[in-house]
């Protein structure tokens, strides 16, 4: 990223003692570095530590160190094995997978369509896609609560089709959570895909068509590979925050559609089992950084030397 050698102090570059140069660097970045280390790195390390402690009688973590929290996460509690926590974990994975897949299916044609419109329209269309995500996520979820609650046209239609019982709403449910996730993350997929479509090399498509490739083959061999980097960037931007989502499952999901974020939060408020909550948070961290790492690997293979925006 920054290997151009325009350092104002070329001679000081390789010195290891405390040169004025180094002092200058420390002086300028120290306050911010200290801030992030003290108020984010230390607290997360503390939380990771808590995950390996024992739950005290008042929900406070205490010694000795143990793997109790992880055992509880796998379902082993005082009353024997129950799959509740495991279900929550699997549900989070499943919701992330389904929501990401559906977002791709919706965003792909949308991004393509925007890229085929007139130059002057495109910024307005992109803005139209992004603006709803500027409103607060609590308000957006509340909007869906209004739309899906009992007595609304959507709920009535679902009742008429026999999808839900009489006098029921479409929320709280897993369906409402999936819908909320798609709604929330759609712009994050449209933008990188649009960027990929915008610089699409049409010569390749025309060449394929000239060689009598069917539209499907032309798409698959000439268009799709060119959009892979956008698809990958979008997948990172959607799937990682979706896995850690808290607001949407809390408002649209209810108890039977809980996700990992809710499990974690509950342990720090009502449930008061800090180690269990911390263990859940640790899993989320591992998933986040593991996911980022995996996507980077794939991205490097895809783009050769080209970095995929992460």
């Amino acid at each position, binding site marked *: 990223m920054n290997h151009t050698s325009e350092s*104002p102090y070329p001679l000081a570059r390789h010195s290891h003692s405390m040169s004025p140069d180094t002092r200058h660097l420390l002086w*300028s970045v120290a*306050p911010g*570095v200290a801030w992030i280390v003290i108020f984010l790195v230390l607290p997360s390390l503390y939380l990771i530590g808590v995950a390996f402690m024992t739950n005290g009688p008042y929900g406070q973590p205490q010694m000795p160190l143990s793997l109790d929290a992880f055992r509880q996460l796998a379902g082993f509690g005082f009353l024997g094995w129950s799959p509740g926590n495991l279900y929550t974990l699997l549900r989070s994975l499943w919701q992330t997978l389904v929501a990401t897949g559906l977002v791709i299916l*919706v965003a792909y044609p949308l991004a393509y369509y925007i890229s085929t419109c007139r130059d002057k329209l495109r910024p307005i269309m992109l803005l139209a*896609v992004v603006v709803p995500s500027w409103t607060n996520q609590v308000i957006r979820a*509340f*909007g869906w609560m*209004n739309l899906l609650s009992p007595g609304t046209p959507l709920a009535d239609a679902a009742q008429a089709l026999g999808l839900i019982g009489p006098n029921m709403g479409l929320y709280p449910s897993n369906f409402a959570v999936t819908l909320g996730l798609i709604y929330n993350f759609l712009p994050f997929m449209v933008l990188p895909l649009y960027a990929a479509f915008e610089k699409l090399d049409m010569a390749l498509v025309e060449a394929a068509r000239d060689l009598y490739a069917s539209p499907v083959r032309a798409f698959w061999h000439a268009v799709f590979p060119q959009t892979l980097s956008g698809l990958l960037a979008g997948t990172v931007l959607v799937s990682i925050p979706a896995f850690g989502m808290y607001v949407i499952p809390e*408002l649209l999901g209810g108890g039977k559609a809980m996700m990992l974020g809710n499990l974690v939060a509950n342990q720090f408020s009502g449930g008061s089992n800090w180690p269990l909550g911390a263990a859940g948070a640790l899993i989320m961290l591992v998933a986040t950084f593991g996911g980022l790492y995996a996507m980077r690997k794939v991205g490097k293979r895809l783009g050769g030397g080209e970095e995929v925006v992460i």
Partner: protein
Amino acid sequence: MKRGAFQRGLSLFWWLMLAFLYLPLAVIVFYSFNSANSAAYFAGFSLRWYERLLNNDQLLDALSNSLTLGIASSIIALIVGTLIGYGMYRHRSRKLGWLIVLIYLPIVMPDIVFGISDMAFFITLDREFGILGPSLMTMIIAHVTFQIPFVALIVYSRFVGLDPTLFEAAKDLYASPFQRARHFLLPTLKPSLIAAFFLSFTLSIDDFVISFFTAGPENATLPIYIWGAIRRGVSPEINAIATLMIGAVVIAAVFSLLFNRRGHAGS
């Protein structure tokens, strides 16, 4: 005319998705003018929920908390973040991988883990040493933490866009670092600093999860107040506040469109 049909299909899909994106917001706006206390039917136009907002002290407190939090945290983040951005630029020839990782950390960290870590940390500090109990202070601290990276990256990218010889010229022109900062750095950075401040402020006002977990019982911000109101049972007043917030976003969108137009015309 197969291609025409394909394009028409896409265009239809576009309008459907636009409806999908705006329907939840439209419903909120629509029912905020409902004279009945219901989200199921519309009884007639009324502004009674808006009138109620003006007399809702809790809500006004939440608004003032949101503004205080947003302004205070943005000012701190602006100072600290600008210093990092400047340091990153001046020393970009060094291996600063660790710094880049550290700066991206608050961005990639899941909100819920961010909020919960800080909450656990502050509660423990409060219990053991009696400092930093959940309050407006802890919220400001947490907000600054996630604002710093954005300020640093904006300032850094502004510097990268400059001609490096400008720095040499400034050095020849002004003797002291203080003069250089005043007559060269600050004026050059001004647009970026304004942008960074507004981005920080927006991020702060919009944040729910991190605020929610680091707030004390008396520091509800606007999103936290709305969250509480939703949990207590839906009141049409929420529609009215939410409509005002949606209105603010729409105004911002129009401004961004006009601003971009002007930017294009200029270049």
